[in-house]
């Protein structure tokens, strides 16, 4: 290994320039040199020449590349900011160049599946836990990077780009990853908390998207704040149970990445997941909504995966199950709501 790799240690890598990736790259660029990776040659040129990424402005010092090798060799800390649907592919693309000294932090709130060659989710009967991967698990499976962390919390890109105050959680089993994340991102307007339960934090960020779709649907039906309070609280219970079944700790669900993000997304018209729910309630069909969206709503895929997991593990999660029927089986939202109102919940909180 040549020493040049380590010489320019202040360069920070960001993979993916979606809305969140762009914001994070801009925040990182305030303190450090940043190199971003984009798949697309035009986007790379746009960043290098105009300092914009798909129209969004980018810090002037940010350079872009299309070459995973260049990024891996120039950066020791790399942020992966790609949607879950592309995550496995990107991880595989970077795998030949990642080394054990890399610190990798991702900001993706979704799940991937580890299925036998040629099978799709619909064909798999037994979707047990070890077929479901969080993004940190994808990184560890596909690459040699072990010092892996995740970034989660109520971080709506639009607000962050305006410089409004916010906070996030960096979760990792390795203290050095948390410290590095804090060092790079912390500012007067951005607070960074640490958490060692990476799986719990990832799951919180993932599961809250389900509830966000439901919240959008309630708003779309024109229901009020009582209904929203009901949904958030019951949604929270469901998140805790699911997260625990998938290996997270209850504690993390109560943190910034759990309840913090849940409240934000359930109130935000800027959230993609919320928007999907809202438009469904207004009578639009799912394929049409998805067609018109620029970026993916992670919640849709999550509902699908969690539904499969629930069946295999013989668990119940009424909100997720009914949302699945609304999304994929043409159940009317009103009917789903009726069903939930009749569902025999008795105990308010039974997990603390």
């Amino acid at each position, binding site marked *: *290994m040549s020493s040049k790799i*380590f*010489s320019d*240690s202040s360069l920070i890598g960001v993979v993916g320039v979606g809305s969140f990736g762009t914001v994070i790259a801009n925040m990182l660029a305030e303190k450090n040199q940043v190199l971003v990776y984009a798949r697309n040659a035009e986007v790379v040129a746009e960043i290098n020449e105009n300092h914009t990424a798909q129209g969004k402005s980018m810090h002037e010092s940010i350079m872009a590349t299309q070459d995973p090798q260049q990024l891996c060799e120039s950066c*020791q800390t790399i942020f992966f900011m790609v949607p879950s649907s592309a995550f496995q592919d990107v991880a595989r693309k970077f*795998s*030949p160049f990642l*080394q*054990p*000294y890399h610190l990798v932090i991702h900001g993706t709130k979704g799940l991937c599946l580890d299925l036998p060659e040629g099978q799709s989710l619909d064909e798999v009967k037994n979707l047990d836990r070890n077929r479901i991967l969080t993004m940190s698990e994808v990184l560890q*499976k*596909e*690459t*040699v990077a*072990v*010092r892996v962390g995740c970034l989660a919390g109520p971080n709506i890109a639009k607000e962050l780009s305006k410089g409004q105050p916010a906070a996030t959680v960096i979760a990792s*089993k*390795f*203290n*050095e990853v948390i410290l590095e994340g804090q060092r790079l991102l912390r500012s007067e307007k951005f607070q960074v908390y640490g958490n060692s339960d990476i799986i719990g934090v990832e799951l919180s960020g993932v599961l809250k998207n389900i509830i966000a779709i439901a919240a959008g649907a309630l708003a779309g039906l024109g229901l009020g704040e009582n209904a929203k309070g009901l949904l958030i609280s019951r949604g929270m219970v469901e998140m805790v149970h699911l997260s625990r079944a998938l290996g997270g700790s209850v504690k993390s669900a109560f943190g910034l990445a759990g309840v913090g993000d849940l409240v934000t997304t359930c109130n935000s018209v800027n959230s993609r997941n919320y928007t999907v729910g809202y438009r469904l309630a207004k009578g639009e069909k799912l394929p049409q909504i998805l067609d018109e969206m620029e970026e993916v709503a992670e919640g849709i895929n999550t509902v699908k995966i969690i539904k499969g997991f629930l069946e295999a593990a013989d668990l119940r999660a009424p909100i997720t199950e009914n949302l699945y029927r609304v999304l994929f089986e043409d159940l009317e939202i009103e009917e789903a709501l009726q069903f939930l109102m009749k569902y025999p919940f008795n105990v308010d909180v039974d997990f603390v």
Partner: protein
Amino acid sequence: MEEKYIKHKYDPILPSKDEWPVVKLARERKEFVKKVSENAQGRILKLTSNNMEILKEELETTRYREKLRIKQNPWVVDPDDEGAFWGKVKESLLHASSETSLSKKQREAIYKEILESITSRYSEEIASNFKHQHYKFIRSVVTFGFARLLNAARVKGFRSIFSNQYTLQDKIQITGETDQLRDLATKGTIVMVPTHFSNLDSILIGWIISVLGLPPFIYGAGLNLFNISIFAYFMNALGAYKVDRRKKNLVYLETLKTYSKEAIQFGCHSLFFPGGTRSRSGMIESKLKLGLLSTAIEAQRNNYQEGITGISGKIFVVPVTINYHFVLEAPSLIRDHLSITGQERYYKENDEFSTSYKISKFLVKFFTKGSDISVSVGKAMDVLGNYVNEKGESLDQHGRVIDTSHYFRSGGKVTVDSQREEEYTHMLGRRIVEEFHRINRVFSSHLVAFTAFELIKAKNSKLDLFDLIRLPEEEIFIEYEEFKDACQRVYDQILILREQGLIKIAPHMKRSLEEIIAHGLDNVGMYHAKRPLIRNKKGQIVTEDMSLLYFYHNRLHGYELENLF
């Protein structure tokens, strides 16, 4: 044709004993012990943040616990001057805290002195007493003696006692990555991590290391084994250092870890039983004791820090599984396990047959009747659990060569980060457990025990484990045909797992199912007074001891085979 086990004589990789790391270590024993003691002091001072109050408390706790141990749990091996030594420690501690005329500096000096006296006592106690003459002697006794016994039993006729038709290697079959192990042992330092089911393992492994032509490994053996003088002799001869599980105080644990770490850095091949003690349940260890394992990682990092980046400073972790049809101590082990996990749910019943046994009696039985043991050597890994190639270079999951030192780098330098290394130790532990399952060899006896127990469990699905084990044995029987069908299902699944490289099978598992079942029934726990599984006169499968059946069944735990029932 059944696959051939490895059965040939290996030349020693280091012909001259003077080159053996363990001999070098024995030669420098005095300096080495001193170095261990000094480094242990450094670690303890660091752990107590150089704060004299904390150190004082640790010393007092240590003294108190040691006093208690001497009073409540004395062993034959304990030296006679223990009482006196700790009495003196007490005096010094008292002197340091009560004497008002002492300055802070003087007081510090006294505490450090006490610490030094304890760590040097402990290091001396832990250090092995390897003597090459003894080693040679033991090795020939074991090989010669066992061979005589074996031939006497198997070859008929007057001259049988002198026959060389059978050797120990017919009895104990070694399979797996032996060539890689031999090769890497000449290049770097080996840390061997075997599964642990029986007290016999220590001697067995010692013998195997010598058969493979490797220089002796050092390993931590429970001090309790040194209570039995014959064991003590064996252990000392094989290079064992002593681990006293009664001593749980910080000073002792740190000294022990320092010893292990320093020995690895010295280049001594080492052996840990990562499960800590013998597996009580009969399952392959799934939770490992990480204390000693962490010393391998620490030693590796230390080598990198000192700039030893070549293969000579590389540490290779080699998992090994030992497979038995029969575990001598099974009755007491499973009893322990059930009473620990079940607490008041599990009542011990008196059973005069299984409480006492004789090692010698077992050995005779072992050699005179056919119960084979196989030892499988896994692929070597680096301290992060990556496989290595023939040059000893680490490979990532896609086969690319990677540099292990990069795991310890941050900002371009090798750095010390104890939290990071703690996490690495967990990762290594998980990898070892994974490898154990992969190289585990299924015997016929495991198959029949597993199938029978799962069938009984399925028939009594309302009962939990403890009720199940208390079922009256005379009421349990399985019709042979049903049993055979179930065995077939489990067997098929095992073959699928084998295809995927997730388990291995013994050669006798390639016979017809009827033969496998018969072989399994003959062999499962064959020398126990109460057999875990037999076929009765009506041809039904019955058990004489449910908890033993559970024990042997557990060997196939962790492959999700129970889902077949």
